[in-house]
């Protein structure tokens, strides 16, 4: 499928550009946007270290593999590489890990020690990874504009901003891109599934310290995981709710649904510059009729 300019919208910017996306600001630097590059690096690093001040080495304990002195993945874990989504903010994450990892028995015990405000701080460190992803998306959008000969084009809204807005409030990115009613429907769908998950689990489904792997998916709905970090996460658990498993799955499904919402918000803004060729999609025809 090609757009109206005969460009393939599915064609990426290549592996080097993809890899550069892991270093906030590098794509902007490559594009000659020096001040935006500095802003990207500074904002992502500042947000990560703000959360790190509270959670510190406990972040290692929330990774996909936990360094325990015997695992073959220890070297990766010591660099903080299995910790998602912080890994998307690669330089600050690795620097923080190098500075704070302590492989002694005391250090490993400290990783297991809960901290005050760790729910909120865990969300903040994760937000740095998501922020890095949105900066990378902004860089890729600029690269795409240059590659397809539309450097001066102005989209209805910045696609990366639309995706970022949808991370916090599902559907807000669509409203920004001009599809307000569709955004309300998509946002409501995500919010209802997430709320059902919290209700069925008595509020305990979204807890990074307890269900860290599920939390990676749940955090794709940033507004929901922030609510959980502030309100339901710190709630005292007296007994395991009977439908805890159902609640955890529903909240994770809501996060994955929001990933689709974010990608669609990006696409809606993108197509204001690169529309599909005539007859390319029902959405364009409906958009023309609306």
């Amino acid at each position, binding site marked *: 499928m090609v757009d109206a300019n005969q460009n393939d919208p599915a064609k990426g910017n290549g592996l080097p550009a993809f890899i550069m996306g892991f270093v906030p600001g590098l794509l902007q630097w490559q594009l000659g946007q020096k001040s935006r590059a500095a802003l990207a690096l500074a904002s992502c690093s500042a947000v990560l270290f703000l959360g790190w001040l509270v959670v510190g080495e406990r972040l290692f304990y929330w990774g996909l593999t936990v360094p325990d002195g015997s695992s073959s993945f220890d070297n990766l874990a010591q660099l903080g590489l299995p910790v998602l989504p912080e890994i998307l903010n690669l330089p600050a994450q690795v620097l923080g890990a190098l500075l704070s990892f302590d492989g002694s028995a005391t250090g490993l015990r400290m990783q297991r020690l809960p901290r005050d405000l760790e729910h909120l701080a865990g969300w903040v460190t994760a937000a740095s990874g998501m922020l890095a992803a949105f900066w990378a998306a902004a860089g890729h959008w600029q690269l795409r504009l240059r590659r397809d000969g539309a450097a001066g084009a102005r989209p209805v809204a910045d696609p990366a901003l639309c995706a970022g807005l949808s991370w916090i409030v599902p559907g807000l990115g669509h409203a920004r891109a001009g599809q307000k009613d569709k955004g309300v429907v998509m946002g409501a*769908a995500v919010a209802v599934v997430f709320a059902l998950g919290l209700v*069925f689990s008595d509020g305990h489904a979204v807890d990074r310290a307890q269900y860290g792997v599920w939390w990676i998916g749940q955090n794709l709905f940033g507004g929901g995981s922030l609510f959980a970090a502030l309100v339901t996460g710190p709630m005292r658990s007296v007994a395991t709710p009977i439908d805890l498993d159902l609640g955890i799955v529903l909240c994770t499904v809501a996060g994955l649904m929001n990933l689709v919402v974010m990608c*669609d918000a990006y696409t809606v803004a993108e197509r204001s510059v690169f529309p599909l060729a005539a007859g390319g999609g*029902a959405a364009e025809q409906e958009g023309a009729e*609306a």
Partner: protein
Amino acid sequence: MELLFRIAVFVPVLFLVALVVVAQQHATADATVKAAVVRTGRWVVWSVVLLVSMTLLELLFIGW
């Protein structure tokens, strides 16, 4: 009772997931909701087919 409860949750959630999935091919809320109803129906049928197949496999390999 627990199974009934799970089915009661499953179908509305399926509809909400369908809303998000089909919205990618539509630009208006109206068209999205209509398409989601059709898609949910199709997914429910496939869910029943999957459930029956798994039950038959269970009967075949494990027994009643």
